Structures are given as structure tokens and as C-alpha cells.
């Protein structure tokens, strides 16, 4: 591979997500973003991002219709760096309760549920969560070498969601966040796969630093392979 060439990142376009802001953040981090809805586009790329805004069921339906479910599972199995953002993180899980139960990509065992309608004091919660909230590092976890390598603990990021994921195995939890009295898993990492519930591409300088960390991971993964 030409060392001066920028690593190509496929951004999966399944007709729901805001791929454009993700693409701009990738370009800012020195990556070469390619928005694609072709299985071939995933195979050709060095790394893959699954973005997402909208409903779980519709997202899975679109991925099935576009023939992207197996290619995504294959690309993850191949060991390429893979990042799911927001709904793209939730899709990595086994299933979601949004509009009935929908099966997900099944990469990370666990399920996706809605924020409770009332908090522990019985007051109505404001859902969706829209705004900046903090990432906490679990006591047992280290962020060294992860996407959050340069992120200060308790840093604010931009969130926009009504559902959140509960991994079966808490050791995949990269970071946690609290909203309306509910503490939840706001990021996961397992081998070559990471998922972030917030939008780093909308989280200003600290968010762009996460894309830069992703770019470093891609370069390191390439060096290991070559």
C-alpha cells in the first residue's frame, strides 16, 4: 500500500443516516471517506463506519433490502476496524424493542430498550435525550488504545436518542452516561468493533479527536496486517 494514500473508510448508506457529517469528520481526521450502499464498497475499504439516525426496525429492513447484513457481518469477522455510531451502535446488538422486537446484527449480545417514561421520583422524563452529556469511564476499564484514548473522563459529547443498549457482558462497556436517572452503556468496544451512542461528528473538537483516534487504529491495524 502507498504510505501517502489516505486510508479508505466506507460509510454505509442505508438511506436513513446522516452520512454527510460523518464523512466530513472522517476527512477532517485524514481519512478518505466513501459513502456506499454496495457490499463491494465495504470489501474495498480499510475500515467501515455504520452511522445511523432513525428507527431500528426500518434500519434493519433497509439493510436486508440492500443485501448489506451478511457483508457487514463478514467485514467485522475479517477483523477490519468497524465503528457503529448512534443507531449504528444499537444495530450491533442482538435485538431491539423499538416498535415490537426486531432482530439486530447480532455482533454484540444484548438488547436495546427505551428510556423509562418516568424517573425514579415518578416525574415524566424528557425523551428523546437531545443534548450534551458526559462520558464516564467504568472503574474496571482503561481507555488506553481505545477510541477514547485522548478523551478526558467526564467529557461532554452530543447525544440524540430515545433507546439505549444493554450488553449481556458488561466487560464490553467502554463508557457510561446518565440521563434522567438512568445510567446506561454509551459506548462499547470489543476487538475490532466499537460502538458509540453519541455523535462524535457533532461533538466539536473533542468529538473530532475520536475520529483521529479511529484513524490511528486503522493505521495500526494496517501495519499489523502488512
Amino acid at each position, binding site marked *: 500500500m502507498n504510505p501517502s494514500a489516505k486510508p479508505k473508510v466506507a460509510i454505509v448508506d442505508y438511506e436513513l443516516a446522516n452520512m454527510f457529517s460523518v464523512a466530513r469528520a472522517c476527512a477532517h481526521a485524514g481519512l478518505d471517506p466513501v459513502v456506499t450502499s454496495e457490499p463491494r464498497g465495504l470489501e474495498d475499504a480499510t475500515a467501515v463506519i455504520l452511522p445511523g439516525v432513525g428507527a431500528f426496525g426500518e434500519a434493519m429492513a433497509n439493510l436486508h433490502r440492500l443485501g448489506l447484513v451478511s457483508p457487514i457481518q463478514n467485514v467485522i469477522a475479517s477483523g477490519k476496524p468497524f465503528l457503529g455510531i448512534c443507531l449504528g451502535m444499537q444495530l450491533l446488538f442482538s435485538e431491539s424493542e423499538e416498535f415490537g422486537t426486531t432482530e439486530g446484527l447480532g455482533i454484540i449480545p444484548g438488547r436495546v430498550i427505551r428510556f423509562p417514561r418516568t424517573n425514579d421520583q415518578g416525574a415524566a422524563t424528557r425523551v*428523546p435525550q437531545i443534548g450534551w452529556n458526559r462520558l464516564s469511564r467504568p472503574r474496571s476499564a482503561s481507555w488506553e488504545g481505545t477510541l477514547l484514548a485522548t478523551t478526558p473522563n467526564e467529557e461532554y459529547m452530543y447525544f440524540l436518542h430515545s433507546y439505549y443498549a444493554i450488553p449481556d457482558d458488561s466487560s464490553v462497556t467502554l463508557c457510561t452516561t446518565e440521563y434522567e436517572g438512568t445510567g446506561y452503556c454509551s459506548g462499547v468496544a470489543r476487538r475490532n468493533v466499537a460502538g458509540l451512542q453519541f455523535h462524535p461528528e457533532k461533538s466539536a473538537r473533542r468529538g473530532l479527536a475520536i475520529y483521529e483516534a479511529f484513524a490511528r487504529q486503522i493505521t495500526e491495524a494496517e501495519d499489523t496486517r502488512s
Partner: protein
Amino acid sequence: MSIRVIPRLDIKGPNLVKGIHLEGLRVLGKPEDFARHYYEAGADEMIYQDVVASLYGRNSLHQIVARAAESTFIPLTVGGGLRSVDDIRNVLRAGADKVSLNTAAVNDPDLISRAARTFGSSAIVISIEAIRQTDGRYLAFTDNGREQTGTEVVSWAKRVEELGAGEICLTSVDREGTGRGYDTDLIAQVAHAVSIPVIAHGGAGSAEHVAEAVLAGASAVAFASIVHYEFVRAHHRSEGHEEEGNTTFLRGDRQFSRVTPVSLQQIKDHLASRGIECRPASAA
């Protein structure tokens, strides 16, 4: 949950403008200069509003939106003159994260449902322009407070939530551009009636006004004059040259004497001192 602090940029053609009661627009400068400054100063989001689009039935924001999206990495809401799912798609493709709808939603409430189904509720902000009546009721208006809809604000707010709106941007036309403070009664009525977030807009003249809007129940606060004024002042001092826009009214006009110029940092510091959580400006 932190409160969002949102500069609102009113756009007319290629320019950033500011009016009073959504009228009497004057040119302040280039929107990208203001946007860049607010992004670096810790804005949590930005709202771009094409203030003349719905009058002329057109939308000229695409280039301005594309430029903003290239250099600012925070959520951007765009409104003004959007009439259809295709209009919304185009502005999202240009780089907006959310759209705000008013006139088109009033004329065709089902547009809210169609847009929410297509793009997700979170991308759909309904803008409500409220004017207080002599009997104390608030009625919803369109076209920058010119056209009455005959609908009460609270019932319209509940209706748009049911139809799938993700947020409400609530403007007090009576207070807008005056610096007399937000209409806290209006904010409280709407914020208690719906469970989706309410962005308060219209009337900020000081950092304490912003805090009052939050304490009345707003999840986010939008403002224009107070930070525009501060930016223009700082820009003059640092650059030592005249702005291209007509800013004399900001500096000398008596109608603006109620506006105390403050920076985003000062607003956020003030909110924090009042016990209101927000992302520190220094984190930007």
C-alpha cells in the same frame, strides 16, 4: 442533563441580519464569520433561519448551510421556507442535522408525520411563533408573526408532539429582538404541556434572562442580539476595521439599550453559577 445554549443566525440572502419582533431587518455581516466564532466559543448547536424565505416561497440557504457544515462540527438546525419532504431532504443533504418548520406545518400538519417517518423525529423541529393576546392567551402565528393561525399555542404544541415532532422552538414575537427578557409564562405553559424538549427564543437581553428561561422549563435557549453585539464589539477591537454590515444600530440605537452584550462563555458561566448544568465553554 445539560442545557443547550444556541446562537440563532437570521439569514437574508447572503447576510446575517437581525430585526425586532422578527421585522425591520438590518445587515450585521457574513454568517460564516459569526458561525465560526460561536463554534469556537462553545456554542452547543446553531440555528440558521432564512427569515425571508417563506415570504417569497423560496430557499436560498443551501450554500450557506454547506459552508457552515464544512467548518463547524456541532448540530445545525435550518429553517425558513421548507415546504415538502423533498425540501427537507435537500437541506439535510446540504449539511443540516435538523430542520425547523412553521408555515408549512401549519398549512399541512401531516407534513410533520411524513417528515418524522422519513427522517426520524429527532430531525424535525417545529417552530412556533407566539403572540400574547389582550386576554392573556397565546396564539400561534406564521410568516414572522404576520399571519394568524387562529390556533392556541399550547394545543398546537401538543398536536405537533403527537404528530412526531422531536423538538419545539418557541419564539415570543412580542419579546423577540427587544432585550426585555424571555416570556417565562409562555415557556412554562408549553414546557409543561409536552414531553419533547422546548427551545426558548426571543427576548434575551442578559445572561440572567437566559437563566430565567431555563428555570421556567426550557431544555435549550436560543438568542441572537446579545451574542451578535458582543461578537461585533470584540471583532472591532481585535481587527480594528469597520464591519461590512450596518452595526451602528447595535452600538447606539436606543431600542438596543436593553441588550447587555455577553459572550457564550459569560452566559455559560452565569448558568453554572445559578446551578444550571451546561457544557463548559472551555470544553469547545
